[in-house]
Every structure is written in C-alpha cells, then in structure tokens.
C-alpha cells in the first residue's frame, strides 16, 4: 500500500459529538483478533449507520463532530475503518486514546472545525495531510484544518507504529 500525503475521497458526514468507541465498534465483538472480520462491525452500534460497512468503499473519508472516538481503548474501533479502506478520519476533535490508535495504524486523523453546509455526505474531498488544507472538490471551496504533526507523519509514512518502513 502507498501512503500518499494527498488523499482524495468521498465524504461520509456522521453528525453528532462524542460518538464513542462502543458505537463505532460494539463491545460484543471485542474478542475478535482478525482485522479482516472487523470491518463489517463499523458503526454497528450507531443508530442509522448500521449499513455503513456495505455502503463504504475504499478511499472514503469519515467526518464527524467533537470528541470522536471517546470511550475505550479498543484498537478495533480504528482497525474496522482500515478494513473497509477508509483513508482518513476528520473531526472537530478526537478522543485522545482514539487519536493515538489511528495514528499508530497509519489512519490519518485531521482536526477540522467544519460548519454545517461546508461538507455533506457524498462530497468529494482532497486533503493535504502535511499542510492540513482540505478542498471540497464538489463545492469548490477550500478550508484550513490541522494536519499531522511531524511525529505523526513519520509513523504514517512508515505505514504504522510497528512497521520499520
């Protein structure tokens, strides 16, 4: 897999703040150790989003509100998106443990204080991970977000914390 620092993909806007790891990946699947079987549980405990795993396509980008991924330390809540081929997570802020878990798995986390109307599900986005610049290609608008720090980019370029690059 190539780890491009400029990502382009389709947005899924998951409205709401404090969407926690139990909504993202329900605790009844915690004993799962095979990443290939984690994707089908993504958002399985978030009302209205149960179909996400069948609708998501590789290259998609998930966008949400404040404190995304708060709650437990379960890595599966990150891995399930990797399994589906989601290339980036964008939120107004992230739960601290979740943010680390995503960085460590080379799933970029971009902090963007987006406003209603600036992005809708289905919009095509381009994100520059280094500069934090987000272009909404559908709406032809451009926004400044917080990209990855140097340490985070280094892990991303290696393909994950435990990869030696």
């Amino acid at each position, binding site marked *: 897999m190539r780890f491009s620092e400029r990502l382009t993909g389709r947005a899924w806007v998951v409205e709401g703040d404090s969407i926690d790891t139990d909504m993202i990946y329900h605790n009844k699947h915690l004993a799962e*150790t095979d990443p290939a079987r984690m994707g089908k549980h993504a958002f399985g405990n978030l009302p209205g989003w149960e179909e996400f795993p069948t609708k998501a396509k590789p290259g998609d980008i998930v966008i949400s509100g404040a404190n995304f991924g708060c709650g437990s330390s379960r890595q599966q809540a990150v891995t399930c998106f990797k399994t589906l081929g989601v290339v980036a997570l964008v939120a107004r802020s992230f739960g*601290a443990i979740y943010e680390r878990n995503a960085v*460590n798995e080379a799933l970029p986390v971009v902090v963007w204080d987006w406003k209603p109307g600036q992005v809708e599900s289905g919009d095509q986005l381009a994100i520059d991970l280094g500069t934090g610049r987000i272009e909404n290609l559908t709406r032809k608008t451009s926004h400044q977000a917080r990209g990855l720090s140097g*340490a985070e980019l280094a892990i991303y370029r290696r393909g994950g*914390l*435990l990869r030696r690059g």
Partner: protein
Amino acid sequence: MGRTMIEKILGSHSGLDSVRPGQVIDLAIDARVARDFGGANVVKGLTDAGLDVADPARTFFTFDCNPGGSDQGYAANQQRCRVFAGERGMRVFDIDRGIGTHVAVETGLVWPGATLVSTDSHANILGAIGAFGQGMGDADISAAFAFGKVWFKVPGSSVVRFRGRPSPEATAKDRVLAALASLGAEGLLGHAAELRGEAIESLDLAGRMTVASMATEMGAIIALIEPDEQVIRFCRSRTAQRFEPLHPDPDAVYDREVTVDVEGLTPRVARPGHPEDVVAVTDLPRTRVDSVFIGSCTNGRFEDLRAAAEILRGRRVAPGVVLKIVPATDEVWRLCLAEGVLEVFKQAGALVGNAGCAGCAAGQIGMNGPGEITVPGCGSRRG
C-alpha cells in the same frame, strides 16, 4: 519556570529537564500491561512485526475483563497470552487476581510519579496515587512491550478546584459526577487535570480511585491528585521502589483553572447513555428497578462494598430484583470474606462475582436484557 505534576512525571521519564505542552517525547514506561481484552492482539502485533519483549520483569498480563472465560474468545485470548508469558518468564496476574490497574497499585507495580500503560482505557485511574497511567490501543502496547517506551504528546495542564463542603451523604462518586455535570464529556479533552480542594483531598485511597477513574469520561488524559501522607504510606508498604512525593511547583503554568461547586452536594445519579447527564437522585421520579450492579474500577474497593453491606445488613433483595456484586480485586474479595461482608451479601440474596471487571467491556457480569432497568453503583461508562 515551574512545572505541573504531569510535566514532572513526563520529564523524569524522558530524560528531559523540562517538557512543554505539545512537545512529542519518548516516554519510558515503568509497568507495561496488557489484559485479556487486547492482550492477544498485542501478542499478534509483536509476532507479526518480528518483535519481542524488551524487559519481561516490567511487562505483565492482567486478566480482568472476563476472568471466568465464559466467552470462548476471551478464554482463547487468555491462553495465548499465558503461553507467550510463560515462554518469556513474564508475570501473569491471572484470572483470580482482579482489575489490573487496582492490582498494580496493591502489588506496587506503580508508585507516586511512576508510569504505566495498559490496554485498559481507565488506566488513568493511577492519577489517584499521583502516578501516570494511560490506556492505549494494541499497537501502542505492543510498542511498549518491545521498546519499553512510547511516543507521547505532552498534554496541557488544568486545575480543577472543588469548592465547598458536600453533604455527609455525598460520596466520592457524587463529587466526580458533580464535576462531570459541570465540565461535560469534553470538559477536559486532551488535558492533564490536577484535582484540588478539601472535597478531594479529604478522600481516602478508595475515594481517590473512584474520582480518578472518571477522568476518561471527561475526555481527560488523566486526573491527578497530589498524594497525601496516607497514600504515600500505603504505596511505600506495597513497593520496594524508592520514590519521592510528587508536588506541582507553586509557579507551574496551567492552561486554565475551573471550579466545581460542591457546597451542600447531595447524592447524584447519571442518567443512562451519558455519564455527564447528571441529576440529583431526588429529582428523579420514583422508579422500580429490575437489577442493581455494584463494582467496577470505579466502585469495587472494599470501602465501597462495606458501605453497601451496611445498607443490606439484615435485609433481602426485593422479589423480582437481582443484585450483582463484583469486588475489584482478590485482596478486596478476601477482605470481604474476613470482615463478614460476603455473609451479608449472601444473606441478602446477591450474586457475588469473581474479582475483576464487570459489564463495561462485555465482561463477566453486569450485562442486562432489553428494557431492563439497571442501577449501576457504579460502572464508569455507558452500557
């Protein structure tokens, strides 16, 4: 320039005189822990990456999520960890020992100023003794096992000052619920908080653990409480490690200071779904409950269970209601046995579980059925 508590701990574990918020450091970890939840993935992560354990004497497994192994997946994961540990001479706090973070305090794996990481999202409960604990995912814990250190971004520090004197009925849990109600689920997001004020400083170790266990629910990296004489004495009795009490410098720099008013505070309850949705118990309509749960890292200490026993003594659980009790650790379990607390629970008709976690991570006990009205006294998070 003065340093906050977190800056002192992180500085002393990164070989740096001074660390500042936002700085990314390599943090040395005194105790590296994985549980039956996450542990098998840590083993897999290490094996797949061709890595091994740097220092088996500082690396541990704690089986606390589902000690009984009633879930086949957990049982299989425990055995994989056990075999991995056996091959390396690592210590396993096995299925009889209880909640890993509590065991770490009881057995002196940590002390004021120490660092621990675990696959437990509530590892920051160690703020109760003025130590750094952090829950991390499988990849991080694999790295900690393999290298003895993890990358960490130094968080900003806040002061949370509890003002006023709570009513005698208000427990440690009520105090932290008051903070949650006041600060919200994101109130301390990404911050290391120092909790101060008489309402916190007067708490014993069990009460401090209750309060510190809820830091995650406020989005905090950790909620640190300056250890008092009692806590220091306890820790010295449990660890051979020499340590100096840790205090923030008087001129330490904080991002912000907030006040939580607990004057006259009465018992609180968090309504289902969101721990920060807190109301006075007396503001709720009288509600018939189906089940009650007592335990977890928040309220599974001996002091908590003794308080429950005082209420239950000579009484029985009402017909149609079930009561589930889970002591936090084997030490707590044995104390309950020696002090007659178990006798009270059994006479009352309670189910008493194995020492350990309970329902939070789909664990051994405390799950409920659809529509079942449960009062957890108290799990730390939404069901």
